[in-house]
């Protein structure tokens, strides 16, 4: 399952009303892999968080499939994310005291009781798929690459049709970053997940179907990447 994205007249403002990000129009078909690049402070992460429905105040339209996200209440946006959006962060954001399965299956804790066992099983399967099947120890002892793979397993275990990644390789060395990119792209393609990744990492950007360049809060380039 995949979800397409349609953005129209999106504007994100600061609490004082200054426009931080403006995107007149953007169409992303379901299952596409999109990279967002640009200088630091350009508004890349802001766009990503706006697409996830995490930012206020915001105006315009962000439509995922048939769902107009910005028209939803905060509670419905949260429910939408739980069902449809996986997120990966630069510094992993794991619960250091939990083991890898505990972190990968953390969303099971707030899922309906009937879904919990299946989600945990998927989390363990994803960990195995990513080479972390014997990691029953606290993630505090993990390397950066291992941690980010746990974060990917967490995102994929939820079977979300959309994966939003914010600088997923920024905290990793080159070898670990390349392995992570391989895993991330392979998983997204296998499952038809729509992947939108903000990154400075050209190795990652080059593996996307399409690259958006953001500068000073505006889209300055939108190009497809040749296969």
């Amino acid at each position: 399952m995949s979800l397409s994205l349609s953005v129209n007249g999106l504007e994100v403002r600061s609490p004082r009303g200054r426009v931080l990000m403006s995107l007149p129009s953007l169409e992303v078909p379901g299952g596409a892999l999109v990279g967002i690049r640009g200088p630091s402070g350009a508004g890349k992460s802001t766009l990503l968080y706006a697409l996830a429905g995490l930012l206020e105040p915001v105006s315009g339209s962000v439509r995922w499939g048939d769902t107009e996200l910005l028209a939803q209440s905060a509670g419905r946006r949260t429910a939408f994310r739980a069902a449809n959006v996986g997120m990966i962060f630069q510094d992993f954001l794991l619960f250091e005291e939990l083991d890898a399965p505990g972190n990968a299956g953390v969303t099971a804790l707030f899922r309906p009781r009937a879904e919990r066992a299946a989600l945990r099983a998927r989390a363990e399967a994803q960990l195995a798929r990513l080479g972390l099947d014997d990691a029953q120890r606290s993630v505090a002892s993990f390397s950066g690459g291992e941690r980010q793979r746990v974060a990917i397993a967490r995102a994929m275990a939820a079977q979300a049709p959309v994966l939003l990644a914010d600088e997923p390789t920024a905290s990793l060395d080159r070898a670990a970053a390349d392995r992570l990119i391989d895993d991330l792209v392979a998983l997204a393609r296998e499952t038809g997940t729509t992947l939108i990744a903000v990154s400075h990492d050209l190795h990652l950007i080059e593996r996307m179907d399409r690259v958006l360049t953001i500068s000073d809060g505006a889209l300055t380039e939108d190009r497809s990447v040749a296969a």
Partner: protein
Amino acid sequence: MSDLWYSLPPLLQDLLKLALLLLPGLLVGAIALRGYAPWPLTRAILTRFRWSAVMFVALIAISVGMGIGLLAQERGLRRGTAQAADKFDLVVAAPGSELSVLFAAVYLQPSDMALLSGEVYDEIARNEKVAVAAPLAFGDSYGTSPLIGTTEEFARYLSDDRIEGRMWAEHHETIAGAFVPLGIGDSFEPAHGIGDAAEDHAHEGEGLTVVGRMAPTGTPWDNALLVPVETVWEVHGLANGHAPEREEQIGPPFDPDYFPGTPAIVVHAEELWANYALRSEFTRDSETMAFFPGTVLANLYRVMGDVRQAMSVMALVTQVLVAASVLLGLFILSRLFRRQVALLRALGAPSRFVFAVVWSFGAVLLLAGAALGLLTGLGTAALLSQVVTVRTGILVTAPLGWAEIHFLAGFVSVTLILSLLPAALVLRQPVVDGLRA
């Protein structure tokens, strides 16, 4: 409704009161956690911030412990002082402060008191309703033990006739209270006066020998040395209560012409009504004052009860302030794990789940602090009891009572409800700010 309540057995009343006090907190917990299992995350956050958590638990434990300890101690002190006065049915003294006489005669606290004459004593002793009429004589001591002159009859009555060794048979023999650091056969010279003002060599040549030891009574008399009242009078150069031809006599009857005076007479009648009659009979303006120590204590407790209520309110306010401080601390602490909270919300965790995680974090700290506070309170009460017993001779025990359990239950319930506040405030923090923190 109140009739129904008071018709219930006390134990059931206490259990119901406990349940009612805990109910709001339990309901809040049940509603906050319903349908979720936040414990793995709560445990993870507790582990991450364990030292801060330990500090909070200790703060709560000390606060709760002091509250419980003081409540238990106050009750123990009240019970101990009442028990200490148990053998003192009626006390007759010169008109003045009943409280001063009570402290002097029952609790052996030094006090300047006017003396009753031999005629008054004689009239009391001859009254047919009187079973025991014991004059008391104070003023001397040995170490920290006051020397009390009285009669054999009273010494036996006070100790329920449980005396190791034997009763005195001569003027310079004494029986010791249970905790006096002298053994049977030991001799000593009493000092004139008590405490720092005592003159050690004022009664040189007036040696006394311990011939018996009373069993513990749980009263300050356990630290006293009892001698024939004649002995106290003699060592002060006074007549000894008997005519010269009977000067070797010990105990009543006393000759009013040779009776130097006594600050207080302890009276015991076999019948309860007789005590009331005697009190009435010997309550005379400008001559004698008769009172029941129990009544004076009851009046004192009534005043203390008001103070106690005020103290209870103050203790409660203090607990609420402590709880508020702790909750403020919890809110500050929750800022430390705002990234985790933001992560959960970014991953789609419902607000109520995040709320349950933060609330259960606070609840664990509060419950742990309360449980530890209970133990601290028991320890505090035991320590204070020991100190009071050693300092006053009054046997004070302060076991855990329902008042303390209710106090604790109220504290737990109130703070569990109050801890909804930091949990709610955490939810108001912007998610993206948390993710970028």
